[in-house]
């Protein structure tokens, strides 16, 4: 996994530095646009406001050094600006979308966990058997099937051929696509991790004491690895988030990922800035919590690297 265990202090430093990078990046985005940003908006978006209003809302009427603290003062007050196109305040919108993305993410996470755990548990003790092959195949496919393909094939099978799920505004199919894309890696990793521990002295002695095989599998093979695996899940957070951009757009699921993509398409810069800031912060938080958890398990067991 990561080359070295990170200390808690370093994780905190990276989180704070990451926030600084993110906030400067999003604020400078409009300023980095080639040419005059307002002319670009007039030419390429359906904005109907006058130049002075746009410049004021994008913070272009002041220098970057004044604009960044100003933007942050507003953010901290809970004022996330207004959409250039719909003129809606962004704060409540962001919260709504965050809730929907969280629902999708939680569903995808549980699908992926349930599937990969049960497959890995049945594959680990029986190399070469069906479950083992399924895990290998799934691992290979999730590394080589682009998310749009996975999602469209699922729509084709489970919505058009056999109409079980609705395509639009139904979280099941998008969550399933996401979990297919990440679960393959997890299943493979879990299987290999569990298999490593099956012949560990503690497992062997438990078997000798007459502990039943399923219990050996759970308590002496899976449980000792759970810390490292939880930490790994944290580092997968960004991956899940990246997938949500594609899946939410494809299934028209109104979450944060869709907001990022659609606001970029419509050149609605205040919305893009806020949505990128939120998703970026989420991903930073997930990854940092993951590496922090990893450093904790390192400190405790000392040998979880292998």
């Amino acid at each position, binding site marked *: 996994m990561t080359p070295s265990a990170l200390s808690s202090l370093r994780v905190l430093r990276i989180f704070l530095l990451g926030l600084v990078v993110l906030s400067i990046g999003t604020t400078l*985005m409009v300023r980095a646009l080639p040419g005059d940003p307002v002319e670009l908006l007039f030419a390429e978006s359906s904005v109907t406001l006058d130049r002075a209003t746009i410049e004021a809302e994008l913070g272009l009427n002041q220098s970057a050094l004044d604009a960044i603290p100003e933007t942050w003062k507003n953010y901290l007050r809970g004022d996330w600006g207004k959409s250039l196109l719909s003129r809606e305040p962004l704060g409540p919108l962001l919260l709504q979308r965050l809730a929907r993305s969280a629902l999708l993410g939680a569903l995808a996470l549980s699908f992926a966990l349930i599937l990969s755990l049960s497959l890995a548990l049945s594959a680990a003790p029986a190399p070469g058997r069906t479950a083992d092959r399924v895990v290998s195949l799934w691992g*290979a496919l999730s*590394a080589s099937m682009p998310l749009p393909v996975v999602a469209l094939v699922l729509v084709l099978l489970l919505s*058009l051929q056999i109409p079980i799920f609705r395509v639009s505004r139904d979280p099941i199919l998008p969550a399933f696509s996401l979990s297919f894309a990440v679960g393959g890696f997890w299943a493979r990793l879990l299987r290999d991790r569990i298999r490593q521990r099956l012949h560990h002295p503690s497992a062997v002695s438990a078997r000798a004491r007459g502990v039943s095989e399923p219990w050996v599998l759970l308590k002496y093979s899976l449980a000792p690895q759970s810390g490292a695996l939880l930490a790994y899940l944290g580092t997968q957070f960004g991956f899940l988030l990246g997938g949500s951009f594609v899946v939410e757009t494809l299934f028209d699921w109104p979450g944060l990922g869709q907001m990022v993509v659609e606001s970029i398409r419509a050149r609605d810069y205040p919305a893009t800035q806020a949505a990128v800031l939120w998703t970026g912060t989420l991903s930073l938080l997930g990854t940092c919590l993951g590496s922090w958890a990893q450093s904790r398990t390192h400190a405790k067991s000392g040998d979880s690297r292998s």
Partner: protein
Amino acid sequence: MNSRSVPKWSLVWLVLWITFSGIAFFLVPSPTFELSRALQLGFDSFGRPLASLVLTGSFRSLVMALFATLAAGSLAWLITTIRFGLQESTVASARFTRLLDDSLSIALSFPSLLVALVFAAVFGAGWSTLILALTVGSLPSLLRLLWSQADDVRTEFYVEAARATGASPMGLFVNHVLPGVWEVYALKLPQLFAHALLAEAALSFLGLGAPAQSESWGTLLAQGQNTLIEAPSVLLIVGLPLVITLLALQSLSEKK
């Protein structure tokens, strides 16, 4: 030295696909027009022959991904050399190395697609944006691999010995670190290429990668979505070669 057996099917597929897509891309009028008719693969929603479209589109994607992989691959060596120089230097403090490591950790904590989307937001969809986004997106994971390998090699006894006998930092890097890291690096490159192809497909699928007039694997997938009800075959004809290509590339990176 190279005892690893590369699966033959993947090499055969990659060579054949790149050759044919190159032919379809450079020969105008394309011979695949007739091929498309002969194979009965049908036409896209604008009446263009699908087989030829997939071949030319995939060639563009392959070239973009290759560019990005090579750019990231060489940039990564440049940065790794600088980092090694800093580590070996007696003048520069360890703070610089730590700064580099922190920057990498920060870069790794954002999904590469988010970074790519921000590039697209600023510079608009287009080939140069795409290459830039793909390069920046694939750099962090490569750097993490190279740095952790280089750090392992750096503390080996034979490197300590060479250092003690007065080898220069550049000599240490060229004679010890480079050969020590090279194998892992070479093994990682096909996977990086696959990731670049995946990212291209995702970005262009979202309409933020390839420019509107020219087709790529991602824009063709978007067409597959639009005609999913009327002609699901489009998705199959576009998606299947992409999946096989990615499988082939991943199999080249498999440790055996």
